[in-house]
């Protein structure tokens, strides 16, 4: 008994040796933004949470300049009375000019420091991140960092943009045959929003994809469920199925809105040739809105499906042309090829040099299973 008491006393004393962190004295970084200034210097903007019982303002924004991202934290420590910690960094934002120089060298600490969670998101911004972070319009979120993080998180959950977790980005950078993508943020009337998708060549930012094309890219990139999208068809299509010939509803283009979509995408390389992939997309969904008065009988639905397939094929071909022009492969054709072929595997160079020669054929099958409560 005596021994046990001694051991307990000793171990209680030992706990005193472990460094403590009082929450009132910590500045918890929730988001960081990096900008390029004076050609090679980094400017970092930190959004910091603080639990100071005496002050009502719970967050502050600190800007500092240095050569490395840890250096920014070091510099920023001089600008605040709180000890800055990076355990809760949930968003790292990079200015597009900085991202053009390659993300990896600025991300090293995100991957190396065990303190930083893998749950953080990455994003690119086409305005200086210091401006973005200083925006005051963060709805009901406690600070701008949390607002941006939940904006991105929500969009990923609703499958509006591809996943942009740090780890997924790093995986796509390092995997052979696929290029990563990240959301592109921008400011609209001083309010941050998701402007589009930034395309990368390895870890270097090259170009931006319109918000419209995000869905098309995601169709090819991953299997998804419960997505929605809109298409407009030429006005002449489906004319024969109009309920009334001369209603003014029947002017202009035909807009169709689909939701509850699920898609299965499969790849095939004709004759084992990388430059000749065939993409098969099977979609099932529900018709939610159609801007013309169409009698939705069997043939009409079939004809509508045909129209949609044709239209979507067109769009996808345009998207692939865009990607070819920028020499990026966010779809992962190279990766899909290497997974399916044991012989003549692609190397990094062979893959990159053959992207512009890609001749993709599409085979799209759309099924409109339901069309709401009206006939």
């Amino acid at each position, binding site marked *: 008994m005596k021994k046990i008491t001694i051991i307990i006393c000793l171990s209680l004393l030992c706990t005193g040796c472990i460094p403590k962190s009082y929450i009132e004295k910590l500045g918890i970084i929730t988001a960081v933004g990096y900008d390029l200034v004076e050609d090679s210097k980094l400017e970092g903007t930190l959004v910091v949470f603080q639990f100071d019982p005496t002050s009502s303002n719970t967050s502050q924004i600190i800007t500092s300049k240095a050569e490395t991202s840890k250096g920014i934290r070091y510099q920023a420590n001089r600008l605040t009375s709180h000890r800055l910690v990076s355990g809760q960094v949930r968003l790292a934002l990079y200015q597009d000019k900085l991202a053009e120089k390659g993300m990896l060298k600025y991300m090293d600490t995100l991957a190396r420091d065990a303190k930083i969670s*893998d*749950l953080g998101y990455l994003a690119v911004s086409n305005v200086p991140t210091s401006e973005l972070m200083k925006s005051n319009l963060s709805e009901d979120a406690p600070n701008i960092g949390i607002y941006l993080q939940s904006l991105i998180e929500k969009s990923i959950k609703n499958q509006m943009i591809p996943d942009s977790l740090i780890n997924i980005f790093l*995986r796509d950078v390092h995997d052979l045959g696929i290029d990563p993508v990240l959301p592109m943020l921008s400011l609209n009337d001083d309010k941050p929003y998701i402007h589009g998708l930034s395309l990368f060549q390895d870890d270097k930012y090259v170009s931006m994809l319109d918000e419209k094309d995000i869905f098309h890219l995601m169709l090819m990139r991953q299997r998804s469920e419960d997505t929605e999208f809109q298409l407009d068809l030429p006005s002449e299509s489906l004319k024969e199925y109009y309920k009334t010939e001369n209603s003014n509803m029947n002017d202009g283009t035909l807009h169709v809105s689909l939701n509850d979509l699920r898609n299965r995408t499969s790849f095939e390389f004709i004759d084992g040739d990388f430059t000749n992939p065939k993409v098969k997309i099977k979609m099932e969904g529900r018709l939610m809105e159609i801007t013309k008065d169409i009698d939705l009988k069997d043939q009409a639905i079939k004809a509508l499906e045909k129209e949609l397939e044709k239209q979507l094929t067109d769009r996808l071909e345009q998207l692939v042309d865009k990607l070819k022009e920028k020499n990026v492969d966010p779809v992962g054709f190279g990766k899909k090829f290497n997974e399916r072929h044991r012989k003549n595997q692609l190397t990094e160079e062979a893959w990159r040099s053959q992207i512009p020669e890609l001749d993709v054929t599409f085979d799209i099958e759309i099924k409109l299973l339901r069309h709401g409560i009206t006939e």
Partner: protein
Amino acid sequence: MNANITVTKSQSVRAFYLFFIIHTIQIGAGLMGVPRILFLEAGSDAWVSILIGGLYIHFIAWIMILILREYENADILGIQCDLFGAFFGKLMGCIFIIYIFFILLSVIRNYIEVVQVFIFPEIPIWLMTLFLLFLMIYCVSGGLRVVIGTCFLFFFLTIWLVFTIYTPVTYMDWGHFLPVFQSSPLEILKGSQKMTYTVLGMEVLLFVYPYIENKKKIAVPVHLAIVLTTFLILLVTVVSIGYFSDYQLRETVWATLSLFKIVSFSIIERFDFIAVAIWMMVIIPNIVLFCWILLHSVKRMFNFQGKRSLYVIAVFLFIGSILFEYRMSVNQMTDLTAQVGFYLVFVYPLFLYLVLQVRKIWRKRRAS
């Protein structure tokens, strides 16, 4: 030295507990980094290595049981002396002691390394070692039954961690496994060999056997424990290969722990901290079992009695652990121990069995 040990009923345990002994001693510090080690050898076909390795472990367990059944109530130390004579038997015993000491040291040191990297970079090594050694002394001084009770308890306290691997599973990319069988058979076999460090500790069977009450029933719990161990290694390796890219997995030292970095609950946002702390419960059965083996061997071979030898072991461990300052030297020690362990645990029993059989035939011939 007498080959057989007399054990009173109050000292012995049921064969059922062998499941917990074998399993908890196999799972430990090795599991934290096994995906990377296997991946470096066998690439994305590491899962084949694990299956082959698993089969081989079953085979060795079978051989061990056959060896033990040749005697009435013996452990490896007695069997060696019986087969090779007092001098060589004791020499082999000493090799075992040194090997167990270093494996114990490497378990402690590797865990401290992880704590330093993940949670407390500032914590001094000696302090952490002291914590662990206190627990070890407290537990081992209670005798074998307390040690086995610890294993039993900590098994149930930690096995639920398996379920938290669900989150990383949802982020897996199955394409990383395609095409299968890219690695050559030799690389796959090398991977199987590397897997052995993770499952070292099986030799505990050779020491604990005399203390088992119903010896006829030992095969089932032993093989079940090995099945569970192989399954866990397979699980973390497959998930790591799917979750990390080729390059990341090569660079990530403790892939299993890094998997926890993505796990998050609404009240515990950073589950990885909890996981690393809980990992101590995985380590403790390891430490106490190895320490018990060490204590038992010393007692049996040199007749060192009582608690004094336990304190001496603890002091040696303490000194050993503060001598290794760099991670490089920890790694070197771990690798070396693993290599010795491979031959001692996975090759040596075969040799022992062969000698036993030869002696049997020889004796029969002389008798007739």
